[in-house]
């Protein structure tokens, strides 16, 4: 089926639904790289006009990637909740935008709606929304998850403490962890990206973090972001696994390129649940995503990168995750060219994730080959704070010395909390009040080898 619209006296035709979505996407380098972006600015608006007239039901009738060939499509269609969809089933995409901005879209109504919204509907409506629309709607949605802390409550903003080290040096990682804790970071998770994906190393890192957690009775959850199969092997060897992490994408083929599928994710989810290590809840999964990952794996099936990204959230919500964040600027300028594209993409991802019922955080970040700098990150951070983002990253000095990119610093989190009157997760906040004074003495212990088993 084809779609058409007239704009400024010209008639435009779009061959199929994915082409319509791609042409209606706000400009980004990844869609240009894929050769699916609008050719002119006017064509883009014409596509948005045609998209605005499209009934939401069309996304149920015409899957962008065939049901038969993609397990993510099957997941989306098979788990769609028709009853939840009822309040909006008669709307077009344009009317859905108006509905979202209107008085009926309360926090409660949006939470009830989530299982009835497909990723494609979320992506489509976001393409018609300006930055302020994305922020306003998202600010009404709270998604609360629990493990040892409660993340996502109103008036709260959490952080993932990310104490990476280029060679996984235990004392280096511990030094960054202590620095973060002293600056009130880590209530979403203490999560290390290991430099080497090997089981023994992952076990050692998990044991070190768990030892610290028990020593100071910290209400935090820990995670080592190795490949899921490596974490599962560490779990089988008895390592203290709190959250299980995996990078995921929005097509079956892209997930294959990550070495995962729904069955493996399901196995990991159940393995995590069986450990029963959470104290205030049992959300055990942690996912990262990012626009462009499907294209980067040549697995995008001609679907635009923002819609692919939203489809990844369908994968995530299957497993009731504790944390989901887009790593928005990590992928580089081939996919998001500059600060402007990164800012918009971060807000779209946060919106689509929350609309689908996910506990969205954002790694507000950029690489050194992108046309972006700290000012762009300050803009995105401030907008996400206003939109009610669940968590951001806490990286020492914003400089990840292992992954080689810039994220948000412990100080950035203090800035946004102070600006908007936001506080850490309640369990963590209470712990900080009791224990923050003791933390400097931990530095002395670090030197003596007390925290890492590495002395001298």
């Amino acid at each position: 089926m084809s779609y058409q619209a007239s704009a400024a006296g010209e008639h435009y035709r779009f061959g199929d639904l994915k082409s319509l979505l791609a042409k209606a996407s706000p400009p980004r380098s990844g869609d240009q790289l894929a050769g699916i972006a609008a050719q002119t600015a006017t064509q883009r608006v014409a596509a948005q006009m045609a998209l605005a007239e499209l009934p939401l039901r069309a996304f149920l009738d015409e899957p962008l990637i065939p049901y038969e060939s993609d397990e993510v499509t099957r997941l989306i269609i098979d788990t769609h909740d028709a009853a939840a969809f009822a309040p909006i089933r008669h709307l077009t995409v344009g009317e859905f935008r108006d509905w979202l901005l209107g008085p009926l879209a309360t926090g409660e109504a949006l939470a009830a709606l989530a299982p009835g919204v497909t990723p494609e509907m979320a992506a489509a409506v976001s393409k018609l929304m300006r930055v302020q629309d994305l922020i306003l709607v998202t600010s009404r949605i709270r998604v609360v998850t629990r493990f040892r802390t409660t993340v996502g409550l109103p008036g709260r903003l959490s952080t993932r403490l990310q104490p990476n080290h280029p060679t996984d040096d235990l004392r280096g990682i511990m030094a960054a962890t202590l620095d973060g804790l002293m600056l009130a970071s880590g209530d979403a998770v203490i999560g290390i990206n290991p430099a080497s994906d090997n089981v023994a190393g992952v076990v050692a890192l998990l044991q070190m973090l768990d030892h610290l957690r028990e020593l100071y009775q910290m209400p935090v959850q820990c995670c080592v972001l190795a490949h899921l199969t490596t974490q599962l092997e560490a779990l089988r060897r008895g390592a203290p696994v709190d959250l299980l992490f995996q990078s995921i994408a929005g097509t079956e083929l892209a997930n294959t390129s990550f070495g995962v599928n729904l069955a493996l994710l399901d196995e990991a989810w159940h393995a995590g649940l069986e450990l029963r290590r959470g104290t205030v809840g049992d959300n055990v999964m942690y996912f990262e995503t990012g626009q462009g990952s499907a294209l980067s794996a040549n697995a995008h099936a001609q679907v635009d990168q923002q819609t692919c990204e939203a489809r990844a959230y369908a994968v995530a919500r299957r497993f009731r995750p504790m944390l989901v964040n887009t790593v928005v600027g990590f992928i580089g300028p081939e996919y998001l060219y500059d600060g402007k594209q990164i800012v918009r993409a971060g807000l779209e991802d946060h919106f689509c994730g929350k609309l689908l019922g996910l506990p969205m955080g954002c790694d507000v970040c950029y690489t050194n080959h992108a046309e972006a700098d700290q000012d762009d990150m300050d803009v995105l951070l401030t907008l996400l704070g206003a939109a009610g983002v669940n968590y951001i990253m806490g990286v020492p000095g914003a400089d990840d010395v292992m992954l080689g990119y810039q994220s948000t610093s412990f100080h950035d989190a203090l800035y946004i909390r102070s600006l908007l009157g936001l506080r850490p997760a309640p369990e963590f906040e209470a712990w900080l009040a009791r224990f923050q004074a003791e933390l400097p003495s931990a530095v002395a212990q670090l030197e003596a080898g007390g925290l890492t088993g590495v002395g001298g």
Partner: protein
Amino acid sequence: MKLLSDFTLARVGLQRAGNSLATREVLAFQLAHAQARDAVASTMDVRSFALECEQRGWLVEQLASAAGDQPTHLRRPDLGRRLATESRNRLLPRDSSLDLAIVVAGGLSALAVQRHAVRLLDELIPRIDDAGWTRSAVCVIERGRVAIGDEAGQLLHASLALVLIGERPGLSSPDSLGAYLTWNPAPMRTDAERNCISNIRPEGLSYREAAHRIFNLLAASRQRQLTGVALKEDFAVLPEK
């Protein structure tokens, strides 16, 4: 008493102004960012690289990717993953097979390749030769991405491809070298089918340690006939038959 900053290169224990960073810290960060931006813009001196290799008695094959200049290379990763037609033709007529193709590509930091690739190979090539494996010339591709090793490796009839590549510069590491191993290289291999050893530079993973780990992975890969997520680095390597 030591400071936190004695334990890591990460920016810990920073000076504050209120909750914000003090001027000194902000400027230090801006300088590091400026250096990283300059590293991204750097280009490779292929002639001097080839000369260094030849001085060590290694054959060198100078190839080009389909990315004709640096801006194209940055914006079009698809072109950086493909050989230019002329380079492909140069590799084409071949009937003998090899154990290992060695590809050196500029990636996102020509600086890293210029500084570290030859020194890493100084540690690695003797071990490969001692093991009796057949290897290709050192194929150097200025504006290449990781996956260009798939095409080169396939054309060379190599059972394994090793790509040494400049990683995208971090603030504290404008010159970090990465090593990617791919069993049975061919276009359309996915990243899950590769193993990676990252951050090779004196301040990170030393040449000797990196060569040791790369060699172990190569040996394990030859035994198991695969690379990627199924090949964990800590698998024991059995003695070669």
